[in-house]
C-alpha cells in the first residue's frame, strides 16, 4: 500500500468499520453486503474490458450480456430481497447502467400496481421470466414534465374492441425511454385516451413493439436508438412512433380507470395513489445523490493524499495536496454533504415504508407533505451532488479529466437525474406550492404539522428583521441544534417573503399562473431554504443515534461543517433576516476553516468507511492501495489508439503530406 495512505489510515481517531455498520444499518447488514459483493468479485464471467475503451455498440453488447448473466446468477443464488439485489447489481455495474433497468423498475412496477388481477396473471409471469422485456414510454420528443401536454393518442374502437395508437406529430414521438431502442419487445405507453369521441386524459397501455422470435419491429411500429448522449453509452434510449397500431382492449392497465367493451369510460377513485410510487422513486434518487457524491469524494480524497505538489515549507518535500487549505475547502464540505445526504436518503426510505403501511389502510393524510417534500429534496440533493461531483473531478487537476479517474463516468451517469423523474426547477416549484399552501393555512389561523410546522410560529410572532436582530446571541455557532433553528428562521423568512410577493402579484393581475411565474425565482429560493433546513435537521438528529464516542465526535464535526458551510455560502440570507450579526458571520467563516483542519486527519478514514470496493469505484485515482501512477500507465496502454505502435493516420495522411511539402 502507498505509504501516504497507510499513514493516513493509521492516524484516524475512530474505527471506520463502526461507521460502515452505521451507514449500512447494522453490522449484520455490512456482513451480508460484503458476502454478496464477493459473489460478483469472485465470478470470472463478470469481468470485462473497461467500457471506456469500447464503442457504443460494443458497450451495449457487454451490458446486455451482463444483464442476462445477472438474471441467471441472482436466481442461482436465490437472492430476492430488493436491497440484496441492489448490492449485487451495483457491484456488477459500477458507474454504468443496464439496458434492462426500466424493465425491472418502472415496467414491472406499473404491471404490479396498475393491472387488474386478470391482467397480472397474464403479464407478470412473462415479465418475471423475461420472456417479455418492457420499458416505460412516457416522455415524448416535444413534451416532458408537463404530462397533460403529451400527444400520443389511443382511440377506442368498439367495433373490434381495440385501441388504435398513433403518434400524430413529430413532437409526439416517444423519445428517451431506456431500453426502448434495441432491447425491449414490449412497452407501457402513456397516451391520451379517446373513447366515444371524448378525451379522457392520460392512460397506460401495454404495447408489443417487436416480433417474438425475430425481434423485428412490428408493422406500424418505428423504433430505434436516439443516438449518443452525454453518458449512458451502454443504454439504448429509444424512440417509438406508432401508426394506427392496434392493441386489444385488455391491454389498457385497468386497475383504476376502465373502458368497457362498449366504450364506456369508468373513472378512477383517487389520483393520490400514484404519489406513493413517485415518492419511492425520488427517495431512490436522493440515495443515489448521496452515493454518487460519496464515490466522488472517495476518489478525490484518496488521490489528494497520494498526490504531492509544490511547496508549503521551503526546502521540505512537496506536501500532499490535501494539506492545502483550498483543497480541504473544496473537498471536506462535500464529504460532509455526502454524509448528510446519506441520512436524508435513509430517512425518506424509512418514511416511505412507514407511510406505505398507512396507505394500504386507506390513510393518505401524510402523503401530500411527503410527496411535496420528496420533490424538493430530489432537486436539492441532485443539484448539489451534480455540482459536487464536478468539483471533486476538478480538484483532481488534469488527471480527473482522464476517464481512468472514474469521475467523468460518475458525473455523466449521475447528472441526468437533475432532469429525469421531474425537472429540478419544476420539482422545487412543487415543493413551493405546498409551502405557500401551508403558509396560507397558517395565516388563516389553522395549524400545520410535519416538517413545515415552523410556519406556525410565523402567525404568532411575525418575524421582523429588527426583532430578531435584537437577540443576536440566540444562535450558537458551535451548537448544531441552534444552527437547525437558524436554518428554520431562514426558511420561514424566505417562505413568507415569497408568499407575500406572490400575494402582491395576485393583487395586481388576474392570472394566477402569471403571478406564480413572476414569483417563481423567490419560490425556488424558499424551497431551497426549506430543503436545506430539512437536511440540517435530519443530519443533526442522526448524531443522537451514534453510540461510539469516537465516531460521534467525528460525525459531529462533519455535521457542524455542513451547517456552517451552508451558512457561509448564504450569509446574505442570514444577515438580511437578522438571524446572524456581521460579527457572527465572521466567526462562521473562521470556524469553517478550523473544522477543515479538525477533519483533515480523519479524511481518508471517513471515505474508507463508505466501503466501496475498487471494482465498484472504477477509478485508478481512487484505488484503495493508492498505487496510482503505475496503474495509470497500465490502463493507458490498453487505449484503442495504442493498439498499434504506428497509427494508420501516419501512413494515410502525414507521410503523403510530408512528401508534398
Amino acid at each position, binding site marked *: 500500500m502507498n505509504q501516504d495512505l497507510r499513514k493516513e489510515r493509521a492516524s484516524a481517531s475512530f474505527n471506520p468499520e463502526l461507521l460502515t455498520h452505521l451507514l449500512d444499518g447494522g453490522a449484520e447488514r455490512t456482513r451480508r453486503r460484503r458476502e454478496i459483493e464477493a459473489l460478483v468479485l469472485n465470478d470470472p464471467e463478470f469481468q470485462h474490458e473497461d467500457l471506456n475503451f469500447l464503442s457504443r455498440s460494443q458497450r451495449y453488447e457487454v451490458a446486455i450480456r451482463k444483464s442476462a448473466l445477472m438474471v441467471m446468477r441472482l436466481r442461482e443464488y436465490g437472492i430476492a430481497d430488493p436491497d440484496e439485489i441492489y448490492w449485487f447489481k451495483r457491484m456488477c455495474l459500477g458507474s454504468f447502467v443496464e439496458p434492462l433497468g426500466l424493465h425491472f423498475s418502472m415496467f414491472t412496477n406499473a404491471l404490479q400496481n396498475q393491472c387488474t388481477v386478470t391482467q397480472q396473471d397474464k403479464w407478470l409471469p412473462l415479465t418475471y421470466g423475461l*420472456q417479455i422485456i418492457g420499458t416505460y414510454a412516457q416522455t415524448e420528443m416535444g413534451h416532458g414534465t408537463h404530462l397533460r401536454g403529451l*400527444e400520443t393518442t389511443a382511440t377506442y374502437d368498439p367495433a373490434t374492441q381495440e385501441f388504435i395508437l398513433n403518434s400524430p406529430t413529430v413532437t409526439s414521438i416517444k423519445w428517451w425511454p431506456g431500453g426502448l431502442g434495441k432491447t425491449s419487445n414490449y412497452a407501457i405507453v402513456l397516451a391520451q385516451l379517446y373513447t366515444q369521441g371524448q378525451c379522457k386524459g392520460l392512460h397506460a397501455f401495454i404495447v408489443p413493439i417487436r416480433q417474438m422470435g425475430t425481434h423485428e419491429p412490428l408493422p406500424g411500429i418505428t423504433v430505434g436508438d436516439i443516438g*449518443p448522449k452525454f453518458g449512458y453509452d451502454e443504454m439504448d434510449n429509444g424512440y417509438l412512433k406508432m401508426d394506427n397500431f392496434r392493441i386489444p382492449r385488455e391491454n389498457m392497465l385497468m386497475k383504476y380507470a376502465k373502458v368497457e367493451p362498449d366504450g364506456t369510460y369508468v373513472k378512477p377513485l383517487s389520483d393520490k395513489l400514484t404519489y406513493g410510487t413517485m415518492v419511492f422513486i425520488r427517495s431512490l434518487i436522493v440515495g443515489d445523490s448521496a452515493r454518487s457524491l460519496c464515490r466522488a469524494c472517495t476518489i478525490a480524497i484518496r488521490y489528494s493524499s497520494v498526490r504531492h505538489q509544490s511547496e508549503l515549507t521551503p526546502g521540505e518535500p512537496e506536501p500532499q495536496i490535501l494539506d492545502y487549505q483550498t483543497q480541504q475547502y473544496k473537498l471536506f464540505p462535500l464529504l460532509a454533504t455526502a454524509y448528510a445526504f446519506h441520512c436524508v436518503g435513509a430517512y425518506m426510505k424509512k418514511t416511505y415504508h412507514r407511510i406505505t403501511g398507512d396507505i394500504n389502510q386507506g390513510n393518505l393524510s401524510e402523503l401530500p407533505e411527503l410527496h411535496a417534500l420528496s420533490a424538493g429534496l430530489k432537486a436539492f440533493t441532485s443539484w448539489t451532488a451534480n455540482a459536487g461531483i464536478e468539483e471533486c473531478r476538478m480538484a483532481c*487537476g488534469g488527471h480527473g479529466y482522464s*476517464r481512468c479517474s472514474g469521475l467523468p463516468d460518475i458525473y455523466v451517469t449521475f447528472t441526468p437525474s437533475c432532469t429525469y423523474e421531474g425537472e429540478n426547477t419544476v420539482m422545487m416549484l412543487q415543493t413551493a406550492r405546498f409551502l405557500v399552501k401551508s403558509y396560507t393555512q397558517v395565516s388563516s389561523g389553522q395549524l400545520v404539522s410535519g416538517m413545515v410546522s415552523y410556519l406556525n410560529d410565523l402567525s404568532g410572532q411575525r418575524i421582523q428583521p429588527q426583532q430578531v436582530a435584537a437577540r443576536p446571541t440566540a444562535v450558537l455557532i458551535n451548537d448544531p441544534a441552534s444552527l437547525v433553528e437558524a436554518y428554520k428562521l431562514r426558511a420561514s423568512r424566505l417562505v413568507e417573503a415569497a408568499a407575500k410577493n406572490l400575494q402582491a402579484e395576485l393583487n395586481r393581475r388576474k392570472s394566477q399562473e402569471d403571478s406564480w411565474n413572476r414569483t417563481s425565482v423567490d419560490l425556488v429560493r424558499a424551497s431551497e431554504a426549506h430543503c436545506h433546513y430539512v437536511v440540517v435537521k435530519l443530519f443533526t438528529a442522526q448524531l443522537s443515534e451514534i453510540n461510539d464516542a469516537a465516531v460521534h465526535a467525528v460525525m459531529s464535526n462533519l455535521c457542524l461543517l455542513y451547517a456552517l458551510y451552508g451558512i457561509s455560502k448564504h450569509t446574505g440570507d442570514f444577515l438580511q433576516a437578522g438571524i446572524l450579526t456581521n460579527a457572527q458571520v465572521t466567526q462562521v467563516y473562521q470556524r469553517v*476553516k478550523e473544522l477543515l483542519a479538525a477533519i483533515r486527519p480523519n479524511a481518508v478514514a471517513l471515505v474508507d468507511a463508505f466501503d466501496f470496493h475498487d471494482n465498484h469505484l472504477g477509478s485508478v485515482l481512487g484505488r484503495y492501495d493508492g498505487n496510482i501512477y503505475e496503474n495509470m500507465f497500465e490502463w493507458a496502454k490498453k487505449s484503442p*489508439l495504442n493498439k498499434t505502435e504506428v497509427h494508420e493516420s501516419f501512413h494515410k495522411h*502525414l507521410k503523403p503530406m510530408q512528401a508534398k511539402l
Partner: protein
Amino acid sequence: MAQWNRSGYFRSSVSRDVNPDLKAERRTASFSVERLTAVLDGGADNTRTRRAMEAVIHRDPVFSREKQYFQSQNERYEAAVRKAVRLKEKMLQRGWTENRPETKYFYRALGGDVAFNVHRVFKNSILALGTDEQIAKWIPLAEKYHIIGTYAQTELGHGTFLRGLETTATFDTSTQEFTLNTPRISAMKWWPGDLGRSATHAVVFAQLYVKGECYGLHPFIVQIRSLRDHLPAPGVTVGDIGPKMNFEHIDNGYLMLQSVTIPRENMLGRFSQVLPDGTYVKRGSDKINYLTMIVTRVEMLWVEVIPALQKACTISVRYSVVRRQSKLNPGEAEAKILDYQTQQQKLLPLLATAYALHFMNAYVNKFYSKGYTEIREGNFDSLPELHALTSGLKAIITDYCTAGAEVCLRACGGHGYSALSGLPFLYTKVAASCTYEGDNTVLFLQTARYLVKCLAAVHAGQPTPPSVAYLSLTNSGKCWVRTEADLLKPDIYAEAYRRRASRLLSTAAAKLQALIQSGAEEYVAWNRCTVQLVQAAKAHCQYIIVKNFIDTVEKLTNEAEIQKIMKHLCDLFALHGIFSNTGDFLHDGYISGDQMDLVTASYLDLLAVIRSDAVPLVDAFDFTDENLNSALGSYDGHVYQRLYEWAQKSPTNQQVSRAYESYLKPLFQGALSKL
C-alpha cells in the same frame, strides 16, 4: 407542433423556412443584429473577413463535423489529422502564416477540432527560447511539417509546480551530449497533446545536471520518433494516455526516456547554455518565459473558452423559444419555456456574462499587445501586472464559461443531455480549461499574491498600476440607493463591487499579517489564508469585468440602440452578481437589507426586459450552424426534425446488434406459446 408533411416524412433539415416561434422573436429586435455583430468583431471589415474564412472551411467536406458525435476515438483522431493536413494546404495555397488574422478565424471556425495545436506551442517555444541558429534550423522544418512537435512539460506526478518535475538531462563533456532520463514512473511526461501518436519531436523540460550539479529546469529538443517509419526512437516509450472526458481527437500522450542522448546544441539556448567544457552560462532574463504562458492563456480564451459559452447560450436560448411546456395562461397554447422566470434566470445572466467576457477579452488583448511590444523591447515593467491580470482572468473566465455551459445543458431538459444537442461536447471541452494552462485555484492565488503586494505598496504610499489603483480609494460611507432605478446607475454598482473587492482583500491581508506577527512562518500563514485570498482575487476580477463592461457601454455612443441593450446587459450582469453573493455586499453594511430587496426586484425586472431581445442577442454572436453542430440550436429552429433525422444516422441504428441473437433471444424463448 411540427406536423407530418404529406409524404409522412420530414422536410430535409436544410430547408430555408424558419420555425415561426423563432421568426417572431427576430421581428421584435430592438437593435440591428448585423451592427452588433460588427461591434463584436471589432468592425464590419472583420466580420466580412471572418465570414469569408468560415465559408472556406464549411465548403470543404474534409472539415465537416457531421459524423463527429458518432465517431470512435480512433476515428476522431484520424479526422483531426486529416483536417490539420488540409488546413496546412489551404494556408500554403493562400500564402498565410500563423500570425495572420485570417488564420485566427480559421481556428475559431474549426472550434479547435483539429490536430497539431501543440505543434504551434512547440514552434512558439523555439521562437521564444531558442537562439537564432536554433530558430533557423528548426522552424523551417516545423513550418513544412517535416517534423511535428509537441511541448512536454507536465509529468504524471507533477503539474503546475515546475520545480517538482523529475525528468533529468545530464551533460557528458566527453561525448558533448545530454542524456535524458525518466527516473521513475511519476516522472513520465503525461498529457502533452499531439504526443501520443503524431509527434516526431518534443521540447522536453528536464532538470539539467552538469558535473553532478543541478541547474534547474531547462528545455531540450528531443527526437522521439523515426522520420522514416514513425517508430519510436531508441530508448523512447511513447503512447496515448487513453480516453478522456473530451479531446478525443487529440492524442494526449505519455513519454518515457531511457538514456536518450541528444547533441549539446539541442538545449534551447537563448537564456542559458552549457559550453563544451561543461560551463553553465546564464544570460538575460528568462522572464520572457512568462510571456509564452500569457500568450497561450490569452489565445485560449478567445479561441476556445468564451465562444463555448456563447455557443451554449445560442443553443439554449434558441431552443427555449421553440420548446413549449405547460401553460402560463389557461386556454392559451403551452408557453415557450423562455417565458418562465426560472428559465430566464438560468439563461439571461449567462447571456450577459457572455457579453461581459467578450468585452473583457477585447480589453485584455489590447492591454496585452501593448505589453508584448514593451516586453520584447526589454522593458519588463508591465509584466507583473499583465501576468496577474491574465492569471486571474483566465481562472474566472474559464470558471464562468464552464459553469455556464453546464447550466445551459441542464436548462435544455432531457434533450440537452443528448450528444446531438452539441452541449455535452461544448461542456466537456471547456471544462478542461479549468485545469489546463494552470489550475484555477493556483492562478487565483497568483493574482492574490500580486494584490497583497499592491496593497502593501498603497499603505507605503507608493504608486500602483492602473488596474489596482482603486485600492487606494477610501472606503467610508454607505450606499445611498433609495429606489430600484438608482440601482441602474453604473457608478452605484461599480462602487459596490469596488468596496467588496477592497474589503475582501484588506481582510485577507490583515489576517495574513496578523498570523505572521503572531509568529507563524510566512508560508504557513499564507496557506491558512488561501480560502480568503481566493475570494479576494475573484472579487477583484469581478470588479474589473464589471468596470470594463461599463466603460465599453459608455463608448458605444454612436450606436444608440446597441448601447441601450448593452446597458441592460451590463446592469443585469452586475446585479446578478450582487444577487448571487448578497452576503459579501451586506457584510460590512455598505448595502442594507432593504436595499438588497431592491437589488432583487431590479434584477428580476431586468430579466423581463432582456427576454424580448434574447434571440437577437444570441444571433449577433453569428455562429454558423456548422459551427454550433447542434440539433437544438440551428438558426432555423427545426429542432425536432433534426433530432429525429440525426438519430437515424447513429451507428446503433445501422447495424444489427449481436446482443439480440446472443443474449436476448434465449430469454425470449417460450413466450410465443403464451401470447
